[in-house]
């Protein structure tokens, strides 16, 4: 039995060592995504192009404009003479934020029931809208003896990520996204490639058992997955100062569990499809919901109930929770038992389905 599993694993390693593209992807995909997501995804938006219509032209309105500029969130371009002109510039995409200071700005400032300034926001981009709302909630401080418009009701302290750096939120979960991507793609081709190349007909006439074949094929990828995890952690710590607050042992255990689940998903795809092309397509079909619904980018708790149920089926959802818990909150694996159990259930169910689908037959 071990002999046969070893035979399959050795064969896979031989083949892998000759497949330079796949080999490159093992290292390339994590690196590329780290750099891409680590630097490019930034919820801490700065320098949004904006313009002002200042109908008031008072010292107060100029002070407000100065404050806006100083915040760095908005990069103010040439002022607009009128509101319609502002709208036109937003239509063309020149600006994403428009600030309209009405002629009665000074009077409005003293009236607490009316807003003093209007912000015009390009709602076609999700993050801009969020930023603008944040901007509206923080009014410029009082000056020249004028009373403050509002006092802060809440003082926010962001636990686990006091500086609110996006990379800290992104990188740990990125391990999951990268593993989900590479593991599913690699194994989705595993069986179907043999079928396509005609090796399958020979393979099934040998004494190798179905599960031995599966395990033998998956083993090399478990190690590859752990290697990728290590790579992301090192690059994350080095480039983005992402701390690892929990135990490394717990982290690798959680990663191994997720890797097994992702590999099994790939294997299941491989037994359903008839060609490698179909397998890749199906792998991609599972990829997008995994990434979007897992809480990697959008808060999981903000999703409708039905979608949350769907997300529960995807292994990445549970892993994102686990890895953020371990890396950022310093949680131990037993604190995350429920998530681990759900991953385990997925693994067993997918494995059972795969076994059911796989036959050492041609028909």
């Amino acid at each position: 039995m071990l002999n046969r599993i070893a035979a399959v694993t050795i064969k896979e390693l031989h083949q892998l060592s000759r497949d330079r593209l796949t080999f490159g992807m093992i290292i390339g995909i994590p690196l590329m995504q780290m750099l891409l997501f680590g630097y490019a995804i930034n919820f801490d938006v700065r320098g949004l192009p904006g313009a002002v219509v200042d109908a008031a032209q008072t010292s107060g309105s100029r002070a407000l404009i100065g404050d806006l500029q100083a915040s760095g969130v908005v990069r103010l371009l040439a002022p607009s003479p009128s509101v319609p002109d502002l709208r036109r510039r937003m239509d063309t995409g020149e600006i994403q934020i428009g600030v309209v200071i009405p002629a009665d700005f000074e009077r409005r400032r003293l009236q607490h029931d009316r807003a003093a300034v209007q912000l015009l926001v390009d709602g076609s981009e999700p993050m801009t809208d969020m930023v603008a709302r944040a901007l509206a909630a923080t009014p410029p401080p009082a000056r020249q003896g004028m009373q403050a418009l509002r006092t802060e009701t809440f003082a926010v302290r962001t636990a686990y990520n006091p500086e609110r750096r996006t990379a800290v939120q992104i990188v740990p979960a990125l391990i999951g996204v990268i593993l989900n991507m590479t593991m599913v793609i690699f194994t989705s081709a595993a069986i179907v490639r043999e079928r396509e190349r005609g090796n399958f007909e020979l393979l099934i006439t040998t004494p190798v058992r179905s599960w031995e074949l599966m395990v033998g094929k998956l083993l090399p990828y478990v190690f590859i997955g752990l290697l990728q995890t290590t790579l992301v952690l090192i690059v994350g710590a080095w480039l983005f100062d992402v701390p690892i607050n929990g135990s490394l042992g717990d982290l690798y255990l959680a990663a191994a569990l997720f890797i097994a689940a992702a590999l099994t998903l790939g294997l299941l795809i491989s037994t359903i499809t008839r060609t490698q092309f179909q397998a890749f397509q199906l792998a991609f079909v599972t990829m997008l919901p995994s990434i979007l619904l897992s809480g990697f980018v959008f808060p999981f708790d903000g999703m409708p109930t039905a979608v949350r149920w769907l997300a529960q089926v995807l292994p990445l959802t549970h892993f994102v929770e686990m890895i953020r818990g371990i890396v950022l909150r310093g949680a131990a694996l037993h604190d995350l038992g429920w998530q681990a159990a759900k991953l385990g259930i997925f693994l067993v169910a997918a494995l059972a389905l795969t076994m059911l689908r796989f036959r050492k037959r041609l028909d």
Partner: protein
Amino acid sequence: MSTAPAIVAQGLTRRFGSVVAVDHVDLTIPRTQIYGFLGPNGSGKSTAIRMLCGLLVPTSGQVDVLDHQMPRDAERMRAKLGYMTQKFSLWDDLTVIENLQFMARIFGFGSRERTARIAELTREYDLGSIATQRAVTLSGGQKQRLALAAATLHRPELLLLDEPTSAVDPQSRRDFWESLFRLVTQGTTILVSTHFMDEAERCHGLAILDRGHLVAEGAPQQLIRDIPAIVVEIEAADTVGARRALDGDPAVLSIAQLGTRLHALVDPATPTADARLRGLLEQAGVAAQVEIVRASLEDVFVAATGFRTAATSPPPQ
């Protein structure tokens, strides 16, 4: 070793949708012989072989292989069966040695046994000079030698070969058959499918398949003796004219061209078949030599497949 037949099939049938690929075939294949499946493409040879080694489940009928029922006992029989697929099915991106090592591990050879057996096969199938080459770079003949080495690595009692020589040159085909005869003397039973007449003639026993039906069975010499037709050979410069002259005659069951000669299969009930054809040719004004000859296996094939199919001629050697 048991003296019971290696393979007994009864009413073996396989449908793919509305197509009946193998239709109620009965077979008894004795041990330590080379038994051939002869038939054109699409005659059901591959499907039959796949059912015999448990890769396809018969739609109906029963198969016993080495006293075990298939496909029920297929997994238990794996170590006793060797199978060589029609298309090269070892791994292109592995070297010759790596391919053999993989097969040896899968069949449970320990490391010393493995080394010894691979060394033996390397000698036997002349793989030494290409041992570290990747399979994808091998020629047709080399691939075939590797495939046979892999199929016989675990010393199977029964070897199933699905058109093993369709992609190799004549010299390689001769060497290949030498190897098969050597295996038979070592006690192996071999079932081989082919569409080459010269290969079919080398088999101890032969089954002619046509569109899923078993249409003739026996030793090649016996099939030749028992052909249900008189074979008349016509040698003529104008073969087209000769053919036209004979085509409509009710006694002429079929005409096949072999070079400058025609073989006409004539209804066995016809008295003086040669004189009759000679008369027809003279009427048409075609000069020709006409002679009753011994049937070739190709004639047998044409007769067995209902006097319509022209079989594949052996390639020039």
